[in-house]
């Protein structure tokens, strides 16, 4: 689709127009911690903040009621939580975060067993992705298949010089851009400037070679490797909570025998109890087994199934780890340890025709298009 220019100073008025019709989430700083919160008209997002929490909680809510139950004379009356229908826009998320949704879509939009609440929200959410003008020293998106200027989401934009170059990537994106006011076409120079920025930012990050899914699976049996790598890990779970691509959850009831609710909430494979069966058996009793599971799930099992590494290189885990565990250390150590095994990122992953296509009819941001509220101003 055609790239356009949003004039300098016009971004707030566009956001305000969106706020009038959608629930708009944008990066906001609160007491030194930043995350995606719903904003009001006139509220300027903190675009430069690399948010401590990812936006995954907007579509995959941290705690969510899935049903209520009540005992009555006929037995038990079950009421499922109403379908989510609020139209939402996540504004100003980075390409890594936007890409993370395409990854969590793979298990959650399964055509036979979708995660209902996620699917409902995904249909009603559009993503306005803001490319990066700068990489943090914990960023490594280019090592895991991403890029700081990756065109992913519904609208793509990049700050050139106060003016933004914008592009609608989907029908929903076009709908959103209708409220952005009059946009001129981007010139060849504008596009070249955008390309230069993207390349400069990408070059500022070290591109690591990632061992293949198969090689990493072979590394499973090298217990000493995992014990040494994870010696300092506290198994606290902070990484899984700030991570945009971690999606483990738990379902818990809250109530009495007579009435109550059932909730689906975030869980973490780093917790000791995560896998502990009622009889006491715990296959991942030690913290190094749990960290092994986390690394292999992201870099081996998920790629084996879906063709993509379940990590977008946002670096939040590195930043928020209390003991500064660095995922990039794992990648580099694993590369050394698997030297001699089948290496090479591309050849081991399933090819397009080997991966089950996303046959689900839930199209992300579908509902934004159907009931478009854009107008030609």
């Amino acid at each position: 689709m055609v790239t356009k220019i949003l004039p300098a100073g016009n971004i707030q008025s566009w956001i305000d127009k969106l706020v009038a019709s959608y629930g708009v989430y944008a990066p906001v700083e609160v007491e030194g911690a930043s995350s995606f919160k719903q904003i009001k008209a006139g509220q300027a997002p903190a675009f430069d903040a690399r948010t401590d929490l990812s936006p995954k909680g907007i579509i995959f809510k941290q705690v969510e009621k899935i049903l209520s139950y009540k005992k009555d004379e006929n037995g038990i009356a079950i009421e499922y939580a109403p379908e989510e229908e609020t139209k939402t826009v996540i504004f100003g998320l980075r390409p890594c975060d936007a890409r993370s949704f395409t990854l969590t879509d793979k298990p959650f939009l399964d055509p036979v067993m979708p995660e209902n609440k996620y699917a409902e929200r995904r249909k009603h959410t559009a993503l306005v992705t803001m490319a990066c003008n700068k990489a943090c020293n914990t960023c490594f998106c280019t090592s895991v298949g991403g890029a700081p200027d990756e065109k992913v989401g519904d609208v793509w934009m990049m700050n050139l010089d106060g003016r933004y170059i914008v592009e609608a990537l989907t029908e929903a994106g076009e709908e959103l851009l209708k409220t952005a006011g009059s946009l001129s076409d981007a010139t060849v120079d504008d596009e070249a400037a955008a390309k230069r920025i993207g390349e400069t930012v990408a070059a500022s990050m070290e591109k690591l070679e990632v061992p293949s899914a198969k090689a990493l699976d072979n590394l499973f049996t090298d217990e000493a490797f995992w014990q040494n790598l994870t010696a300092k890990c506290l198994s606290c779970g902070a990484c899984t909570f700030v991570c945009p691509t971690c999606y483990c959850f738990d379902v818990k009831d809250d109530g009495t025998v007579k009435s109550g609710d059932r909730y689906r909430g975030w869980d973490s494979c780093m917790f000791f109890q995560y896998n502990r069966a009622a009889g006491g058996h715990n296959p991942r009793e030690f913290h190094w087994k749990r960290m092994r599971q986390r690394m292999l799930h992201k870099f081996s099992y998920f790629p084996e199934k879906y063709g993509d590494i379940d990590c977008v290189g946002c670096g939040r885990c590195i930043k928020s780890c209390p003991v500064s565990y660095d995922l990039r250390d794992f990648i580099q150590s694993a590369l050394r340890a698997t030297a001699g095994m089948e290496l090479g990122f591309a050849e081991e992953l399933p090819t397009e025709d080997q991966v089950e296509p996303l046959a689900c009819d839930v199209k992300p941001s579908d509902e934004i298009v159907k009931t478009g509220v854009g107008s030609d101003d």
Partner: protein
Amino acid sequence: MEKLQTQLREKAIELLDKGEVTAVIGWGSGWNPAKATPLFARDKETADKFVFNPFCFNNLAVYLPRMNEKTAIMAKPCEAGSIVALLAEGKIARENIYVVGVACRGIVDPVKLEKAVGSIDDATAAYLDGDSVVVEIGGEAKRVPFAEVAMDKCMSCNQQDTTFSDVMVGEPAQVPQGQPSLVVPEDADAAWWAAFWTKEFDRCIRCYACRESCPACYCRDNCAVQSLRERWQHVTWDSKEALMFHAQRAMHVAGRCIECGACERACPMGIPLTLLHQQVGKAVKKLFDFNVGEKVDERPPLETFRKEELEKSGH
């Protein structure tokens, strides 16, 4: 500081060489020069990488219960106090540890540092230069007095001579005296505190990093808050439930908390947890006249019951 660091490395190598221990826990350099990271050494090459600087904020004692070999641990007064507390509770065996006391002169509070110099995420270098902390970001060297960015709790540290150790490395030094980052009003009453904590815990994401980084919370996630058989807490995660979790934890570590601040450092949302534990600590001191981390044979007051206490309280 350089000299102290060299001495620590030499000591670690000596202990490993002699076979006195098979593992040494200390600090090393991490991805961020302004944040040290725990380092486990089992050979000379790794032991040569130990560092000690004002960015060594983790409490290493948290690893001791999981070690099943004779381990040496580099201990600031914080760790030493935690080790005493763990010994007093019978959680670790004295013969399994070798404590290398480190004469610490205070640790930098990353939150205070960021308030002074901006985000430290992209720091290329960080070091102590005389009485100042220097952080180099984007080619620019930002300098700030150590006293201004030292952790609040360091300023009132009364354990620099780390009484509990097998060997002491370094000369005790005066900790910096500066302004606490959080000033609690003189007239702070229950209403003030309720409003304060409700606001702070609104950010709590219940990741439990605070609990896992705490040496006193050795229940790990067999924690009461996650108990299924007896449901102490609701499933919903909001400010009220978060406050409930932290209040419970504060009560469970009352009389056992060394106020090292590891919980606050671990929190990805920057919640000032040490303040909560300090308030409870004050109450413990007042009620039981008990100082955590001083005597190996003295169990914490909330774990013991003495008849005199009944009499003292007038019951």
